[in-house]
Every structure is written in structure tokens, then in C-alpha cells.
């Protein structure tokens, strides 16, 4: 049935939007206390994402909502299965979001320092868990015949998922650096360019290893088609092109190539999963797929009309937001 495929794609689109947009927010957050030492530097760095981070985070809310509405069994099994991991994501997002808003509203050094480290830790934890979560979706987790996750928190820790976490961290650091390189104040731009140029090599290396590992997972056998290989190639090529663009001081292009790499990463993961949505490590017959997790055609139809009408409007006004705040941060208008 075509609606299930459509919604698999739409969940993928929302997830991709989330990681492109929040990827650099998390990158900026992870770099925050390390790159910036004086308070002015820190405020400038946070100011570069200030007007847009909340608008970016909504993509996660939308992806979660779409998952619930379109694939309730996927939503329920994944969220209850990855319970403690997702609690950590939520705690990370909470301290990070509150930290962004609260940090600069009090002058005291202890107050600001505390939030600085919470913004860093929140961004890092969220990135690590997403890397682990996507790895485990691909690698497979113990799901029984009743679509119930029977593993523990510890099950989520394995070589492949930890490597996935490392890859996500490096990728988002590069993306965050690339963002600062065009949107930061003078100091942040300089540091962002430095980070991007240095970190792009380990990120690319980690990505290549992760993809090779991914393609050789037992659960991937028979699912890695030409398109998946091409997408993985695009990821690596995108990172190399970003470095080249950076070398030629075309930083906007570099940012665009990083975004492309993130998009291709998420699409490749969804491509390899398809039509599965969660792999059961116990028995392939117990995999969650778009067919045994989806809502009815009626509900998917209603949701499709809604999404197709509203998504272009959202993209329109979010583009307007980015356009309005297109100028880099300058010292006169720091709000954070």
C-alpha cells in the first residue's frame, strides 16, 4: 500500500530535517565551552543559534508525532524499549534548551558556568544516544513475537552502536563548526573554520568505517542495494567537497555540503532499513516493518493531506526566519 511507503518517507524527511538543523545546534553546543573562553565569546557563539534553535527542535517533535500517528507500534516499541536512553535524550534536551534561554540572564560566574557545561553535556548526550539508537535500529535489538523489547539498557551498548555514536559526534561537530564559520561573530567564524578543517578528516574516517561495518552487519544482508551504496558515497563525497569548499573559503558551500552529508546519512539508514523499521535480533520474522506497525489507510490518508498542505507552509516561514537572521552575529546585538 502506497500510503505506508509515503509515511515511511515522511518520517524520514522530518528526521532528516531535524538532524540537518539540530545537527549544527548540537555541534555548536558541544564546542561551546571548549572554543569559547571569555564570556563575550560564549555569548556570541550562542547568539548565532539563538533565534532558530527552538524552530529547529520542532522538527523532532514533528517526527515524534508523525511516528506516533503513522506507525503507532513502531513508536510504542521503540520508546518503551529504549526507555532509559530516551529519558537521557529528554534530560539532555531539557537542560540544553533551558540553558540556552537562561544562561545569560544572570551575570554571576557560577550561574553562567553551570549552564555552559549543561549546554555542552546536553548536546553531547543527545548526539551520542541518537547515534546509538540508529545503529541499534539497523543492527537489531531483542524484540519478541509480540513486538515487545525484551533487552535492557545495556543491550544498546555494543561496538557498532558506540562507533555510530562517535560518528554522530564527529559529524555534528563538523556541522556546528561549519555553521559558526558563516554565522558566528569574527572570533567564532575563525574558530568554526578551524574546527571544520581539522575535524572533517576524523569525521570522514569514522563515517567510512561505520558504513563498511553497517553494510556487513548480519541484519543488513540482502538490504544494502545500489541506492544505499550511492547514498553512502554521497555522504563521503559531501564531506570531501565541504573540505574543498572550506579550502577555497566558500564557507556557505561547505555548510551546504555538510548538510547534504547529514541528509544522505539519514536517508541511507532509512533505505537500508526499508521496509523494516526495527530489526529483531531474535528472529527475522519478528521484525517491525511498515506493514505490521502502520495505522489504517484512513488515518494515513487524513495525515497525508495535512502534511502535504502544511509542510510547504512550514518550510516557507522557516526559510523566512533564516532569511531574516541571515547576517552573522555582531557584538552590538548579542542577546544570549
Amino acid at each position: 500500500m502506497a500510503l505506508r511507503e509515503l509515511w515511511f518517507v515522511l518520517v524520514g524527511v522530518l528526521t532528516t530535517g531535524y538532524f540537518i538543523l539540530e545537527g549544527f545546534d548540537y555541534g555548536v553546543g558541544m564546542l561551546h565551552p571548549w572554543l569559547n573562553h571569555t564570556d563575550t565569546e560564549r555569548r556570541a557563539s550562542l547568539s548565532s543559534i539563538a533565534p532558530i534553535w527552538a524552530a529547529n527542535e520542532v522538527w523532532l517533535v514533528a517526527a515524534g508525532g508523525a511516528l506516533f500517528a503513522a506507525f503507532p507500534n513502531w513508536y510504542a516499541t521503540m520508546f518503551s524499549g529504549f526507555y532509559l536512553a530516551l529519558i537521557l535524550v529528554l534530560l539532555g534536551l531539557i537542560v540544553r534548551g533551558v540553558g540556552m534561554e537562561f544562561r545569560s540572564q544572570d551575570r554571576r560566574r557560577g550561574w553562567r558556568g553551570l549552564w555552559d557545561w549543561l549546554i555542552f553535556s546536553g548536546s553531547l548526550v543527545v548526539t551520542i544516544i541518537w547515534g546509538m539508537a540508529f545503529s541499534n535500529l539497523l543492527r537489531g535489538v531483542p524484540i519478541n513475537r509480540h513486538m515487545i523489547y525484551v533487552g535492557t539498557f545495556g543491550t544498546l551498548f555494543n561496538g557498532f552502536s558506540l562507533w555510530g555514536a562517535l560518528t554522530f559526534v564527529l559529524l555534528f561537530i563538523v556541522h556546528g563548526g561549519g555553521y559558526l564559520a558563516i554565522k558566528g561573530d569574527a572570533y567564532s567564524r575563525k574558530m568554526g573554520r578551524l574546527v571544520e578543517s581539522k575535524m572533517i578528516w576524523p569525521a570522514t574516517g569514522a563515517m567510512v568505517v561505520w558504513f563498511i561495518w553497517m553494510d556487513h552487519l548480519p541484519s543488513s544482508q540482502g538490504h544494502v542495494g545500489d541506492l544505499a551504496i550511492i547514498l553512502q558515497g554521497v555522504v563521503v563525497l559531501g564531506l570531501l567537497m565541504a573540505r574543498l569548499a572550506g579550502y577555497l573559503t566558500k564557507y556557505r558551500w561547505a555548510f551546504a555540503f555538510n548538510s547534504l552529508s547529514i541528509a544522505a546519512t539519514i536517508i541511507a539508514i532509512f533505505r537500508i532499513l526499508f521496509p523494516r523499521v526495527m530489526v529483531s535480533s531474535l528472529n527475522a520474522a519478528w521484525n517491525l516493518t511498515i506493514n505490521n506497525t502502520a495505522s489504517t489507510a484512513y488515518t494515513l490518508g487524513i495525515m497525508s493531506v495535512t502534511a502535504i498542505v502544511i509542510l510547504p507552509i512550514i518550510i516557507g516561514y522557516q526559510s523566512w526566519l533564516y532569511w531574516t537572521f541571515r547576517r552573522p552575529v555582531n557584538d552590538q546585538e548579542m542577546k544570549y
Partner: protein
Amino acid sequence: MTQLGWAELQFGVTTVFHYFFVPVTIGLSFLIAIMETVYVRTKDTVYRDMAKFWGHLFLINFAVGVVTGLLQEFQFGLDWANYSKYVGDIFGAPLAIEALAAFFLESTFIGAWTFGWDRLSARAHAVTIWLVALGTTLSAFWILTANAWMQEPVGYALHNGQAVMTSFSAVLANPQLWVEFPHTELAALLSGAFFMMAISSYQLLRKKNVTAFARSFKISTIVAVITSVLVIFVGDSQAAHLVQAQPMKLAAAESLWNTSSVHAPWSVVAVIDAKNHTDPFQIQIPELLTILAYKKLSGRIQGINQVQSQMVHQYGPGNYIPPVAITFYSFRIMIFAGTAMLLLAYYALYLFRKNRFLERRVFLKIMSWSIALPYLANSMGWIMTEVGRQPWVVYGLQLTKDGVSPLASVPSLDIELSLLAFSLFYGAIAYAAVHLWKKVIGRGLDADPERIKDPSDVDSLFLGTGGDAAG
């Protein structure tokens, strides 16, 4: 306590906490939009400064509302996986539409509003806060569409052990939604108004920026005068709707153990003995319950015992009685808080003449403490409506105990740990938010430190405001 008990406690604690922030967000966004519109029309910069001051408080509030709202969306899957599987087809849709149609709007334009003072024309800037206000209202509408369905499931069929949607228009036309949404929205506007009245009173009491806060006081009083009456009217029809929709909730809210005579009195207070199904002591107003429920002078209200036996007949053996004392008292506290707000708002209006409210120090002092009233009323309203629905999670369709996540995936310990973590984090965030509110309120409309370029100036501004306790 069992896994179910911890999951219920987690839902209750995190939801009530989240809902501390939501109504003020909705109410304040409209009030700020009104102020900024007046500024655009009159070019009187006091209105702009007022919008900025309230906007500052609003943003602190908004940030906490947003981040705690993330958990609200995710915890259906986290703690209530069996519920999510059972109702996802019909319950997920309004949540997803909320994210797409409402939350995107709020979050995008709040960024534009906060940082757009210098980048947008005055008119365009005012439009952004109206869009935020519209977003908050749409958001409330879609969330309440989902909640109304749990109270009164409509437009569904049971299919392979799952509730699936058969009519989206029936879900939208749910009669429960059309009493619940106006009540909640009006309560939110009233909450925002009381938040503003209370803080304005505090500022007037200490003679801070008197022009601006007298105006804020008047604008919010007018909103409170209108909404406090309407919220009671709509709330009354919402309660009357329970007569046929959820007779058990109504009986529990009245602690009415046995079906009343045709002249049912209304209990103001009662000592409730839930074990023996009696109320040993009550203070009652004759006839009032019948009048409230039926809008006429005669009519019986079904009692808990009678509804219980009907439900056993309909759904099989079991205890279908919610915690009566909680339902009864949360309902009473909400009503008393709402009535108190109504009286205060009208008295404030009476004091408008010749600006007499400026000199009534006792009144201003009472008003500044009345900031607690909307919080009390909102929390108690939700506790009444959610606890009163028990033992059902979806009324008549699924019991709460059948909706919790499987023990194999989510052992009790996991919920206990997360509840502990959320309590600590939420407590710290509430502390930080109150700390910042106090700071912003203390500063009033004076010198916005964001505008001060020299950091040493900022230092001197802030040093006075209180030790290192929160560092």
C-alpha cells in the same frame, strides 16, 4: 508501589509541572500582542516597553513549557506503550497535527519576535507575536482534541484489538471537545491576566514604573473580567455534560454515593469515608446540584453505587470507582479559586474609577499574592478531570492498568529512576525560573542590560540583586 503506580505518578507529576507553564504562555502571548498592537497604532513607546517587559517573563515561561512539553509527547510511548499501540491510529493524529500546524508556528515566530525588534518593521514585528498567540491556541485545540477523545471516545471502531479512526470529522465534532477547549482556553487567558495583574500590583505597591504597570493592570483586569465569567459559564456546561457522558466522574466529583432525590443539594465541603461509601459530614446548599446539572428545578443525579453496578453489568466485574476524595476536593478547590478570581477581577474593575486601585495598598497586596490562584485552579482542574476518569485511560474502552508499557521493556526501577531524575531536574529548573522572574520583576522597565555594551556596567546593575545562593 507497582510499576503501574510509578508510571501514573510520573505522568501526574510531569504533566502538572508542564501545565504550570502552558496557560500563562497562552494568556500572556495574547496580552503582549494587544500591547504591541496599541504601540503600533499610537506610537506610544511605553506600550512597547511594556510588551518587552512582559515578553521577558513570557520567554522564561515559554522555554520551560517547551522543554517539558517534549516529555509529554514522548511519554505515551515510554510509559504507556500498550496504550499507544491500542489508540495510536486515532490518538496520534491530533498530536502530529499539533506539531505540524501549531508548534512549528509558535517556535518559529517566537524566535522572530524575540530577536526581531531591530530587524522587522514595527507592524511585521507585531504580526509575529499574534502568530505566536495563534499557535498557542491551535496547539491547545489539537492537544484537547486528543484528550477529549480519551474522555469521550467517538469516531472509532475496534479492529484487531486496536481502536482505529473511522471518522475524523466525528473526532473534531466531539461534544466533549467543544466544552473542554473553550473552558481550557478561557482559563488560560484568565491565567495570563492574573499573572499580569498580580505582578503589576506588586510593582504598583512599590511605585515602580507606575504608568506602565497601571496600564498593564488595566488591560489585564479587563481581560480577567471578561474571561472569569465566561470560564465559569463554560465550565458549568462542561460539568453538566458529564451527566450523560461520564456519570461516574460527576458522582465522584460530588461525592454522591447514592442516586439523589429530584432536588439534589450541592456539597460545599464533605468528610468522605470512601471505604464505607458514605459522607459522615457535609455542608450543603439545597437544590443547587440539580439546578447546575439540569438548569431546572427537578432532576436526579446518579450515585456512585448505582453507576458502579451499571458498569459491572456493562463491562464485567471490577471496581469502576475513581478516588472520590481527590476528585471531590480538586473540583472544589478549582471552583473556589475560580470564584475568587472572578470577585477580585470585578473589584479591581470597580476601583478603575479615578484610578483608585493605585492607593489601595491592602488590595494590591492581596492581588500580588493572588498569582497562586490560576496555578491552583489549572492544576486542580486537570487532576479532577484525569483522576475522575479512572480506572479508565480511555473512558469505557481501555483501563489504565492495561495501557502501561510491558514490564519486560520497562521495569519499575526504570520509571523510578527517571521519575527521580525528572523531579530533580524540574525542581532545579523551577527554582532557576523563579530566580530569573524575580530578577526581571525587580528590574521593572528600567535599563535593559542587553542594551548595555560595557560588561562592567552590567555588573554594577546586577550586583545588588542577591548573593550567590543560586550559583
